[in-house]
């Protein structure tokens, strides 16, 4: 079993220190870590779920536009980062676990190590204040 590269490990350790929700994925989009603030969004604890495949965790969110129409995955920041290895940012709505609409901003960035190798991606969720 190979350990993660230290750039991934250090991103997790940093996420563990933050009060904003942080999600870390591998290069395929599988969720390999989320911090405690992110647990409130997902409605589950990382200790309980462990890593989640992209198919599993991507269905938990319902990203919507201003008219309440479902946003295609290709338009979401993290999906774009996984595709082009660049940072992205977008404000949109999600339907929360209790069915409430919440406006959020998501910033994503690629984890590219010293060797220039693409190792994964990070998505940070910000509660949008311009509702």
């Amino acid at each position: 079993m190979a350990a993660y590269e230290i750039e991934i490990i250090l991103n997790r350790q940093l996420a563990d220190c933050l009060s904003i929700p942080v999600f870390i994925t591998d290069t395929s989009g599988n969720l390999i870590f989320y911090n405690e603030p992110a647990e409130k969004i997902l409605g589950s604890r990382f200790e309980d779920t462990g890593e989640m495949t992209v198919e599993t965790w991507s269905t938990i969110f319902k990203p919507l536009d201003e008219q309440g129409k479902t946003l295609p995955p290709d338009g979401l920041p993290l999906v774009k980062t996984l595709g082009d290895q660049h940072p992205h940012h977008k404000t949109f709505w999600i339907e929360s676990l209790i069915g409430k609409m919440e406006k959020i901003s998501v910033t994503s960035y690629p984890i590219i190590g010293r060797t220039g190798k693409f190792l994964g991606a990070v998505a940070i969720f910000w509660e949008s204040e311009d509702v």
Partner: protein
Amino acid sequence: MKVSLKGVRGSIPTTGAETSYFGGHTSCVTVEEKGWLLVLDGGSGMQNVRLPDKSTKRVDILLTHLHLDHLQGLGFFRPLFDPSMEVHIWAPASATQSLHSRISRYLSPPLFPVLIRELPCKLTMHDIANSNFEIGPFTIDSRYVIHPGPTIGYRIRVQDTVLAYIPDHEPALGPGGIINDKKWISGFDLAYRADLLLHDGQYTEEEYKSRNGWGHSGMEDSIKLALFSEVKRLLLTHHDPSHTDTQLNEIYSGLLRNYGNRLSFDMAREGMDIELV
């Protein structure tokens, strides 16, 4: 595989009566097999490195990183000044500068009187990263580990015998220390089931509390890593310059009481020779 410890002190050489048992030279270890010589790090202990025999015409220097306590002996390493010698220097790649350029910052005036291009030996520099390569009978893996600046550890194998060398390493960096999951531990792949792990043990647990982020390990974290990695034997090295022989012996006695029944470990001592088979 013969492993010889030439320098086990961290940060700065500490010569004196109070450190003479464990030794005051900074990081340097030699590994010999079938007439081939690897020199791990170029701290002040490098001045005690001798070639296996007169017929040896190649030396490979494997640097974990370029902090001065791992480099200060390099300029005084005799094979560099011997035109008949072939010297290879392997060290972690930086994202911005070549190894040659970074070592030149030390091997040039005003810090050193001789320029790299003036060295008469046949010198080759190798920028490495998460790499696998072979040198004579040695199969070597290098992996980046947690320490300020580009820093790697080495896993050196001869047939089924494995030496892991990670003298500068802070695997517990973070709010909760070492994560209890092998996939999330820096250095795990290097150390896994090694016959001997030479690992950073600069601080006591108490000292580490106020030195978080300095790039080094508390001794109990090193032991934890060794236990996770199922190593056969651990040697704690890179001793803090403030630790006297008396203190290191006292610290070791305390660790032995807590972990002696779970792990074979010791404090690294300058002059130690270990035959790994």
